[in-house]
């Protein structure tokens, strides 16, 4: 306690030392006076009295020193002294200080921000109980490796498996919710009753589904998301038991899910109901519409589970050869199925940020080195005055730590800003599928990462100048000051640093170049249609249109209404938009050919006759559908694409040929052959597609595609309003132009995002390395100004001086680019999977990147070269 008090006093004693010194001096003075008075009283002469008093007091200096040491903490005081000195040094050189801190916070900021994303997406465990044993279960087919599960198969798996403690199924659903503002489509999920128990999630209000609540006989019940409860129901505490009408069916709300609950595979969903009564798809073994979610039994590995499920799948294939032939299964950790796709991109970005940080550190190291070089005289003087080696080392350490500390703080702020900015740049639709990013924050893990970076940087930055120190030669330094041939170390070491910087900049530039080229290729891939001037909305009809005739009438009315909007040229309907997915496939066989149950999976698109002309597709042979054919009572017809013809009718004319669905005898006649339209993702290869007239299949929801001669985005609100005007029970959603859909499609977005980020990293890297090169050339010009002066005085041409300097710079640039080329090829082959139709060793990219970097570097070295060439020999020689 009393030690603590004393310590506190001593710490506060660090401040206000002058008044304390004065106090002691006064006290000692009064002591002497009192003593002298006594001595005089004893009869001494005044001189003798003073002498005796001083003698007995002992050395005043020692006393003061002991007093000073006692009144503060000497160690701490020295550190504070170092710190004050460091601050003064840094403040005296604001250009240097600001540069170092700016470069450091850029490097730190990028690395920390990207790490925060990596942490949120890949490191942070999923917010479920014991997430390591949760797995996703898929069916797998040659055309669709991660496919949905058929409900009938799921039931068999659930019954026969010995590896899961729970196996649940869930499927997408979209409900039509009646709201005061009209019917709105809201995202929902249908799950088996044990879904939430398996995840280990319990509602914060109400109850979970009980076992058996998923059966058709149970009442219709629904759980709602927390945000839905808050926004749609105003957080009503008496919400439980209230009815809600979803797609014309009344459900009872039985619970509210916790606010932190998320299920990334579905993205945002508002209503969670049970599977309840199997729909028309779920009663058929051929129809795959659900996803499997399971928890591994204790001690069961992923491999064991895969083997067990495979055995069941093989058994089912034998038992139901018509439907289950060639099917297999795939089990993945839930985390893998959630973030597996963006892992390589995030890791690449982390690598890029790491390289940027490295270049920043190298840059700062060379700045520190050059500073240490110019402070040699100061250090020599300090050690001549008795400063120990350790004390001088500590001075550098203090300065390094101070820079890193300030840099880290700014770096964290930069990281925070960058994170918020990047989050804002992610389209909402995509963010919904990445709920883990909601927890993006500077959490303890991210802070620990930042601390490790700072520590490494601190060690690096205090050792770099010390390196110079260890080479020091006191006498030489004192006599030579900061001129002469002493820049050798800096020139040797500093040049290596610049080569490293140029090399790294080259790697980042190549990465950005490849990603950019890949993005360009992706956006210019042949999609078989003209995507300009196309506007689309998704329309969901209601029960009132369940009869074929009524829906056909509705389609006609909508088309006529759209046609009446000024500028509209044509209107089409399809069950799915192009450039979206290759899903929704069917199995076919070619009539007149032997069929032994092969799986001929072909995506089917049901489209109105105007579909192809509206999109601007090209007809290869035959004809498009006629309006009269667009009717369930008319003979079945189909149009195929070139990929279809290549696979099923190689070297034959498909027009007039007949095909049929695998499990049906009715035939469909092929009437047309169209050039390939990209139905699936931009980066996927074309596949066989079967087009059928929309009304021969008839869907209760469809996409409306409109071609206009005017700005298509302006048309979107008009379209939605017009449809609502026709019937307020029709729900309209997902209004977007075709170009938006393509630009914002997942592959395009991911490509653009990574190209932009790596491009940003590369731009900073080029800037830093150019500055680094400028630094070393400028320094060497400064060092050699005497030599240059002599050369000019002896008659050297200015151009020769230019050559002299640029030859030095050129050597460094060549070396940097050459090493960068090697590094680039090594680094970019790691990102091969992220590139679309570009090879990692793409010659044009490598060449143009080299030229770009060389130009930037040459520009940076021209400035000092120019300065060297304009050296005035008289002045330099006199200055010596």
């Amino acid at each position: 306690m009393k030690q603590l008090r004393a310590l506190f006093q001593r710490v506060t004693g660090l401040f206000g030392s002058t008044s304390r010194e004065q106090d002691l001096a006064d006290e000692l003075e009064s002591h002497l006076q009192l003593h002298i008075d006594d001595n005089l009283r004893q009869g001494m002469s005044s001189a003798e009295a003073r002498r005796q008093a001083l003698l007995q007091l002992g050395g005043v200096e020692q006393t003061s020193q002991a007093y000073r040491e006692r009144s503060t903490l000497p160690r701490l005081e020295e550190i504070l002294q170092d710190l004050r000195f460091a601050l003064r040094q840094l403040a005296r050189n604001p250009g240097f200080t600001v540069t170092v801190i700016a470069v450091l916070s850029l490097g730190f900021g990028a690395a920390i921000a990207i790490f925060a994303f990596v942490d949120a997406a890949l490191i942070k465990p999923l917010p479920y109980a014991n997430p390591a044993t949760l797995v996703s279960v898929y069916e797998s087919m040659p055309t669709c490796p991660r496919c949905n599960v058929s409900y009938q198969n799921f039931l068999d798996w659930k019954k026969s498996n010995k590896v899961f403690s729970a196996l649940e199924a869930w499927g997408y659903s979209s409900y039509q919710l009646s709201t005061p503002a009209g019917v709105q489509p809201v995202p929902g999920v249908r799950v088996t009753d044990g879904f939430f128990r398996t995840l280990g999630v319990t509602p914060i209000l109400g109850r979970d589904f009980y076992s058996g609540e998923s059966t058709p006989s149970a009442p219709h019940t629904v759980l709602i998301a927390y945000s839905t409860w808050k926004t749609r129901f105003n957080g009503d505490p008496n919400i439980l038991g209230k009815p809600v009408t979803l797609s014309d069916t009344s459900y009872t709300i039985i619970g509210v899910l916790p606010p932190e609950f998320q299920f990334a595979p579905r993205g945002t969903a508002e209503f969670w109901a049970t599977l309840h009564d199997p729909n028309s798809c779920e009663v058929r073994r051929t129809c795959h519409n659900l996803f499997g979610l399971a928890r591994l039994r204790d001690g069961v590995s992923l491999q064991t589970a895969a083997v067990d499920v495979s055995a069941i799948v093989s058994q089912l294939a034998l038992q139901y050869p018509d439907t289950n032939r060639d099917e297999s299964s795939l089990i993945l950790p839930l985390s893998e199925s959630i973030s597996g796709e963006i892992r390589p991109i995030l890791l690449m970005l982390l690598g890029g940020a790491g390289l940027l940080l490295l270049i920043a550190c190298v840059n700062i190291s060379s700045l520190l080195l050059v500073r240490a070089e110019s402070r040699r005289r100061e250090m020599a003087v300090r050690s001549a005055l008795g400063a120990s080696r350790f004390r001088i080392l500590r001075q550098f350490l203090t300065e390094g730590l101070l820079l890193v500390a300030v840099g880290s703080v700014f770096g964290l702020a930069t990281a925070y800003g960058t994170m918020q900015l990047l989050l804002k740049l992610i389209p909402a639709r995509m963010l919904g599928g990445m709920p883990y990013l909601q927890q993006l924050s500077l959490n303890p893990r991210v802070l620990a990462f930042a601390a490790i970076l700072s520590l490494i940087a601190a060690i690096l930055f205090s050792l770099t100048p010390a390196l110079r120190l260890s080479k020091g030669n006191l006498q030489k330094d004192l006599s030579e000051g900061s001129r002469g041939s002493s820049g050798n170390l800096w020139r040797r070491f500093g040049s290596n640093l610049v080569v490293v910087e140029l090399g790294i900049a080259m790697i980042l530039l190549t990465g950005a170049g490849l990603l950019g080229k890949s993005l360009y290729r992706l956006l210019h891939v042949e999609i078989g249609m003209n995507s300009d001037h196309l506007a689309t909305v998704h329309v969901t009809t209601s029960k009132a249109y369940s009869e074929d005739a009524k829906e056909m009438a509705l389609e006609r009315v909508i088309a006529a209404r759209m046609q009446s909007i000024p500028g509209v040229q044509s209107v089409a309907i399809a069950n799915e938009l192009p450039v979206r997915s290759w899903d929704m496939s069917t199995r076919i066989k070619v009539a007149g050919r032997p069929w032994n149950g092969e799986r001929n999976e072909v995506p089917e698109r049901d489209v109105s006759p105007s579909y192809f002309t509206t999109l601007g597709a090209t007809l290869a042979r035959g004809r498009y559908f006629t309006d009269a054919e667009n009717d369930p009572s008319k003979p079945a017809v189909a149009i195929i694409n070139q990929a279809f013809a290549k696979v099923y009718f190689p070297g034959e004319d498909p027009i007039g040929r007949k095909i049929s669905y695998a499990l049906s005898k009715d035939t469909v006649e092929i009437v047309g052959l169209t050039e390939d339209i990209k139905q699936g993702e931009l980066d996927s290869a074309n596949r066989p597609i079967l087009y059928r007239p929309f009304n021969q299949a008839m869907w209760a929801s469809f996409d409306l595609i409109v071609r206009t001669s005017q700005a298509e985005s302006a048309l979107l609100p008009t379209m939605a309003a017009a449809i609502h005007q026709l019937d307020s029970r029709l729900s309209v959603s997902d209004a977007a132009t075709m170009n938006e859909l393509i630009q914002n499609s997942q592959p395009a977005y991911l490509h653009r995002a990574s190209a932009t980020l790596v491009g940003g990293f590369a731009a900073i890297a080029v800037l830093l390395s150019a500055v680094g090169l400028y630094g070393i050339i400028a320094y060497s010009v400064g060092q050699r100004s005497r030599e240059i002066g002599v050369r000019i005085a002896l008659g050297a041409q200015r151009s020769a001086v230019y050559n002299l300097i640029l030859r030095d710079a050129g050597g460094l640039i060549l070396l940097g680019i050459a090493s960068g080329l090697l590094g680039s090829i090594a680094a970019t082959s790691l990102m091969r999977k992220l590139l679309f139709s570009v090879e990692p060793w793409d010659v044009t990219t490598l060449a143009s990147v080299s030229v770009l970097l060389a130009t930037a570097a040459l520009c940076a070295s021209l400035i000092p070269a120019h300065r060297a060439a304009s050296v005035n020999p008289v002045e330099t020689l006199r200055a010596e």
Partner: protein
Amino acid sequence: MAEKSDVWQGTLALMVLKTIESMGPLHGYGIARRIEQTSGNLLSLNYGTLYPALLKLEQEGAIASEWGLSENNRRAKFYSLTRAGRKQLEKEAQNWQQTTAILARFLAPTEEPS
């Protein structure tokens, strides 16, 4: 002339506290003289060493200081005992007595084994 002993480490604080207790508020010079007198001039006290010791006691809160006037009207810093100082003195005096008693027993002439 009898050889003067140096002040042992740690005992100076105790002497200072005891001196202030018996004399009341006192300045540094007074404390130094009083310690010398009490020791029967057997202690050689370098007056200068007294001040860091006083500072330490003050930092620990055992004594408090105040500028005032001496008996012959000289300005001087007077030290007085705080409540905490009084307690510390009691405790340390007791410790010291115990230590000396134990040492005295060790140093006492050993009794012949009977």
